[in-house]
């Protein structure tokens, strides 16, 4: 077991109904386990909106990616063996499944408004798939800070 904490800030509002950030399992066989996933508004004037956690079936074409290194490891002993990545802007968005695992309403403009989901039973991400926060189809989510705790 190796646990990794990854944080970041998105660089633009999400597309309408689009992903905000996306953890993708690039490994051929390993399963990721997501223990925590959270995001909060960074004070941008967007509509109050529903944010949802959904699975993805492809990576899409990311324009910004965090590749966890040894300093993201909570023990600082190794980089993520699975090679998982966290993407947050895209020229082609990932394919998002319709099933919603969790959702919350985020008020507009208010800095720090958000949620950190803690999953006592982690959400497993099979090889070649992902998990993302996305906005409701009715609107966009403004620039956000995000944080993840991932086991691989």
């Amino acid at each position, binding site marked *: 077991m190796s646990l990794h904490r990854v944080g*970041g800030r998105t660089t633009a509002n999400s597309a309408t109904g689009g992903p905000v950030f996306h953890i993708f399992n690039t490994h051929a066989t390993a399963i990721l386990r997501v223990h925590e996933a*959270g995001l909060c508004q960074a004070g941008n004037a967007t509509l109050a909106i529903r944010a949802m956690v959904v699975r993805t079936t492809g990576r899409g074409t990311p324009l910004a990616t965090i590749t966890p290194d040894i300093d993201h490891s909570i023990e600082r002993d190794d980089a993520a063996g699975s090679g998982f990545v966290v993407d947050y802007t895209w020229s082609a968005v990932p394919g998002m499944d319709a099933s919603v695992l969790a959702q919350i309403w985020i008020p507009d403009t208010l800095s720090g408004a958000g949620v950190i989901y803690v999953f006592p039973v982690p959400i497993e991400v099979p090889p070649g798939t992902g998990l993302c926060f996305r906005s409701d189809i009715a609107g966009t989510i403004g620039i956000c800070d995000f944080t993840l705790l991932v086991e691989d």
Partner: protein
Amino acid sequence: MRYSVAGRTAATAATARTVAAHLWNPDTTDRVNVNEIHIVSTTAGLSNLCIARTTTIGTAGSTVTPDLDNAHNRGKVPNSAAVLGLALFSVMPTVDGSDLLRWNLPAVIGAGLMWVFSEPIEIPPGTGLAIITPVAVILPASDVTYSFTD
């Protein structure tokens, strides 16, 4: 042994990746395990927050060295001699580029956050764990708490 140590930072410079508070592990062999980090704004300024590792101690504006009374059972002083450094730093710790956690707080006195880690973030010997502003915006004077074991 579990310890909690707290202090108040000074407002940082408006420079990206400036350290506000910093728990440093000076031990040569033992690790420090951080279980919780709390931060609360003491002035009405927006807080952009990030937790990142450090590789040098820098020169803190003030320090808090946990003693017997920081131990939850008042049993003994920390083996690691861990020390909390607080802004303003005259020499900044060397901050790694990897962000472990990010969040932000509204410009309200008392706005705060308690990060409680289900699995602690480990600080290897001769390194640290810092609260920084990840962007070029002042991080206001804040009350901070680290809870750790060593």
